[in-house]
């Protein structure tokens, strides 16, 4: 961190460092967050379990089809313990989870853990790729808009942002496929090449889905960041102080306001991460990417309870971790949080 911090801590190194680490707000925050996430995650699994079981329809008839005889359904149910009471089954499942066993899929002999292990990287890559695209586009664009509010760039970006926020991913996906895959053959329409097999091939297949995922985000983040920057530039006193120093508008915008606006943006990102994860389901369906969302659709229609439970748990953990990461990032961006208040 800072030179001053290191200068200070030189004299009392070693154990002092350990003490500082233990007393670090970031660690305490993480600990607290992870602890409080446990009941939430438990609630998530309970909710999904109840939902899948309480609602009409069952795995046996879903998997065996309409032509299955009652006897077949009964033996299938017994084999998979579907005839046991709800709470017993949930108890079994929960006990399994606590020992690290997510169970086995009803539809295939694969274990839930291995299914998730295969599918998760695809979804993760999609999300990260989309976020990178979003930031690369929206941050410079927002700064340009905020430099001349109501100027040409700002007005055109407003129109584009509105359109990008309002366009449904399935509509966007279809038209991008027609243009880039069918018409110009730049990217493939569907299919997936893993990162391990070929980096170029992977990027080739993932670019279009990531763009589809990113476009609404670009519109949203650009508008948000732009509004916050303009607000900072117009009504924050520290901006006036900087102007009074003789600092140029560009420098005020990029060195002063941007960092403060990122703090606000972070809140927004934290809030719609869950939505973003939801959106991957649709994108994976459109582009037939073998991600977790794609698997989820299958599992739901098959009433494959263990798989759905596993995926829900993974999604829940992802949201909790993402929120923790946002909170920790606050600490990096906002010194008011990083330092324990020395004064009040």
């Amino acid at each position, binding site marked *: 961190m800072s030179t001053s911090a290191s200068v200070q801590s030189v004299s009392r190194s070693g154990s002092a460092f350990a003490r500082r680490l233990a007393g670090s707000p970031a660690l*305490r925050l993480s600990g607290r967050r992870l602890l409080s996430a446990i009941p939430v995650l438990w609630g998530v699994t309970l909710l999904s379990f109840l939902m899948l079981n309480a609602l009409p329809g069952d795995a046996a008839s879903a998997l065996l089809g309409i032509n299955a005889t009652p006897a077949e359904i009964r033996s299938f149910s017994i084999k998979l313990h579907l005839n046991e009471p709800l709470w017993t089954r949930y108890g079994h499942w929960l006990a399994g989870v606590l020992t690290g066993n997510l169970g086995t899929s009803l539809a295939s002999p694969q274990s839930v853990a291995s299914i998730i292990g295969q599918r998760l990287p695809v979804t993760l890559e999609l999300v990260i790729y989309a976020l990178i695209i979003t930031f690369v586009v929206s941050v410079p664009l927002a700064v340009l808009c905020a430099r001349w509010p109501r100027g040409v760039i700002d007005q055109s970006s407003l129109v584009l942002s509105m359109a990008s926020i309002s366009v449904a991913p399935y509509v966007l996906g279809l038209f991008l496929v027609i243009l880039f895959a069918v018409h110009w053959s730049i990217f493939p329409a569907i299919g997936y090449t893993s990162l391990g097999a070929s980096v170029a091939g992977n990027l080739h297949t993932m670019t279009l889905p990531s763009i589809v995922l990113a476009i609404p985000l670009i519109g949203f983040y650009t508008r948000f960041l732009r509004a916050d920057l303009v607000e900072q530039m117009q009504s924050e006193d520290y901006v006036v102080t900087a102007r009074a120093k003789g600092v140029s508008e560009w420098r005020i915008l990029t060195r002063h306001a941007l960092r403060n606006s990122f703090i606000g943006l972070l809140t927004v990102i934290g809030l719609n991460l869950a939505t973003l994860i939801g959106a991957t389901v649709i994108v994976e369906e459109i582009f037939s990417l073998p991600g977790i969302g794609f698997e989820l659709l299958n599992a739901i229609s098959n009433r494959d309870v263990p798989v759905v439970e596993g995926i829900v748990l993974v999604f829940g953990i992802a949201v909790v971790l993402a929120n923790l990461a946002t909170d920790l990032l606050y600490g990096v961006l906002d010194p008011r949080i990083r330092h324990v208040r020395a004064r009040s």
Partner: protein
Amino acid sequence: MTSGEVLLEVHDLVQEFVLRDFGGTKGGVLQAVAGVSLELHVGETLGIVGETGSGKSTLARSVIQAPPPKRGQVIFQGQDLVKLSGRALKSARRNLQMVFQDPFTSLDPRWTVTRLVEEPLVAYAEGDRQERRTRVSELLDLVGLDPERHGGRHPHELSGGQCQRVAVARALALNPKLILCDEPVSSLDVLVQAQVLNLFEKLREELGLSYLFIAHDLALVRQVSDRVAVMYLGKLCEVGPVQSLFAEPLHPYTFALLNSIPSPDPTVGRRDTASVISGELPSPLDPPSGCRFRTRCPRAEGRCAAEVPELRELTNGRFVACHFPLPAREAVAADGKAPDPVVAVAPAPLWPAEPNGAG
């Protein structure tokens, strides 16, 4: 005016706030009010002065049970408010109203003036609609607003002074005995401030009200109060009748405060730089041991760090919490006029010159 009958008695009041760091981990306990005892008589105005962080506003909020204090007693008209809750508290609090600092945020922006003034009457089911409206008109008249012209307006259509009059009318609606004023004029301009101060005086005389008047402006407190209590870091330093307290402060902090006021009289000139109080307010999360003022006090000695000075009566009606109070001079000048404290008490030995390295 003062009948001698005690209206409000506060015993050893303590109010704490748990501070939370980001993410909700407990950051520390802030004792905003650390054991305050005082009493207020019928018809009296008790001024409370102190700087930011002295806990004066928290004291007022605790008295009115919003929120209730952690410890201590607040005996109003013979009832301990701290022990009451629900309906009992509501009926006990009827005679105890409050006027807040910011006239705009203390009025719901979406309500009209009439409705705002009527609200306490509705809450206590006073009269029927017609009677309540008549009462609202009376109240608006009383505070110098025109019921016809201002009654239908929203707070943002009024000036700061007018909003504060609405807040006063609202506080008066239930004919309270005591009004807690939390910096009621500090956000107003000088001329408007004088108008509102005069309104408080007029109401005191006409309705026999008592006030607990909180302010950071000493001159203003002097103008309205019979007695003054000086607060520093959650504790009382000094309590006494307004004239003698201002004429001859006993507590070094009171002296420092008085000395910091710029006087609208250039002949007084710029005071001796050495008499300006040095240093910073210590963190209320970790207040100094013993006397809380000792870190900035030029008279501090070893005893001040070891022993908490209790508030004790030094001379008639003069209470001070200090081990080494400033010597009380002989009687106030015969004509009863208070000498200017800045001129009168400035000579050096009381306040040894110190190197001005702030902090």
